[in-house]
């Protein structure tokens, strides 16, 4: 059975239907890409899935067989659905270590020990000398990595990454691709959005394209990207296959 089942979810802000009757499923272990023009509802969809800060107006979501569309955000997180935010986020007055430790303390693997935390931090490349530093002193890349480490410390089943590579240099993007792959290899299901096509294309095994809150198409990345409607709404006339 699919790990995540989304059925007919919608979310409106006033007259604007930010997410409009969206249904799809994500299989355990896959890397599922989400694309679409700016304002097409990708982040809103992430919000709805995680209940942070709001759930859907309508529709059903089940995660690993549990209905989560009416659950509060922290409970969904504890079920093993971890997310990152569009801008690199951290608890600025806490150290790197403390940022990660919270994931372990309250997350899915609630109560897992310091080992998990240390492992998660090292895994993303934040080694011991960084652990005592205030998180707001980290470089952009390290902050993104920390956000991942904190999520990993939760021992999640599924990770939602909202534009994780934005603002990175080319080599950093490449490094981040490797990192995400290695996370997927640990058996964690990943859903991600990204406008940097290299990132999106080299990671996604299936790609969903949203437009104005509705599903435009869903399929294999290469096919999807050739779809004229996707070119029209999202890619634009010039080729972006770099």
């Amino acid at each position: 059975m699919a790990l995540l089942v989304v059925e007919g979810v919608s979310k409106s802000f006033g007259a604007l239907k930010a997410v409009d009757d969206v249904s799809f499923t994500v299989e355990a272990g896959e890397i599922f890409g989400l694309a679409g023009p700016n304002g097409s509802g990708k982040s809103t969809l992430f919000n709805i899935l995680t209940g942070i800060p709001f759930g859907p107006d309508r529709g059903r979501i089940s995660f690993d067989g549990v209905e989560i569309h009416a659950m509060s955000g922290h409970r969904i997180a504890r079920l093993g659905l971890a997310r990152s935010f569009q801008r690199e986020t951290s608890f600025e007055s806490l150290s790197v270590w403390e940022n990660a430790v919270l994931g372990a303390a309250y997350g899915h693997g609630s109560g897992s020990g310091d080992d998990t935390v240390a492992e998660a931090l090292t895994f993303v490349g934040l080694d011991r000398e960084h652990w005592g530093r205030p998180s707001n002193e980290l470089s952009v890349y390290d902050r993104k990595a920390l956000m991942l480490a904190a999520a990993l410390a939760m021992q999640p089943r599924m990770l939602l990454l909202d534009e994780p590579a934005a603002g990175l240099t080319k080599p950093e993007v490449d490094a981040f691709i490797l990192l995400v792959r290695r996370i997927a290899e640990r058996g964690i299901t990943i859903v991600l959005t990204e406008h940097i096509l290299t990132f999106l294309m080299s990671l996604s095994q299936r790609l969903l394209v949203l437009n104005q809150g509705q599903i435009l198409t869903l399929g294999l990345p290469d096919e999807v990207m050739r779809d004229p409607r996707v070119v029209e709404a999202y890619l634009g006339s010039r080729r972006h296959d770099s």
Partner: protein
Amino acid sequence: MGATGDIIFSGLFQGSLYAIMAVGLALIWTTIGVFNFAHGALMMIGAYATWSAVDYLGLPLPLGLFLGVAASGLIGWGLQVSLIRPFIGRDDIVLMVVIMTLSAASFFENGALELWGPRPKQLPPLVEGTVNLPGLIVSAHQLAIILISPFILAAIWYLLHKTRFGLQLRAVAQNEEASQLVGLNLKALYGIAFALSAGLAALAGIFLGGFKFMSPVMGSDPLLKAMVVVIFGGVATISGPILAAFIIGFIEAASSYYFGLYWTPAILFLVLITTLMIRPEGLLSTPTRRLS
């Protein structure tokens, strides 16, 4: 008739007074995002400065009123430069400003005690005498306040929402860096916001001083009331507090008639808390949640 007239008049009067007291406070909140705990002290300074001008120097009331508002405005500007400005842009500005302005309030109140002495004083009313309304006899001073307030409030609303200056005022504290990059004059804007707020405080103080005794601590109760009004009204706009002021004025007037003044604060807070439970972001603010 009888009581209904009294309740309406009292509600209008208290609402006007609360609105004038609260709008100055709200001005600082909606622009800089802090509460000025010296707002009550600025009220007091305005009233005392006017008293000095009128009673001590023998100037006519309108001139005294102008001097009082100006004095308070000047002090407000100074307060902003010395105590608020250094903390703008810090995450903990709200708490820092609490302590800075509390200290300032204590300084002003005790300074006034030293300067003007503890004996109660009173200002002349704006208009002497009483007015006969149908079924109701009221003091001309109170009626004058009810009639003047809408103009003041409308002017403030217009200034904030319909002028470029108001747009700048609302923008400046939301993002200081972006304000600098668009070319706003931060010092002037903050200064003017504070001076304006202090001037409004002074006006409220002068209105109050015209119908009850003045003392160096005359501002502390009104300050609390004004804070309640501002928070209840919602902190995003200036019209929220104005509406809230009149709602609270009417609740007080009605409940003090029907339940007694003693239970009025309790009833008021129950109403406010219930409202907040239903609308957790204040009376007039938009209810949608968003990522911060």
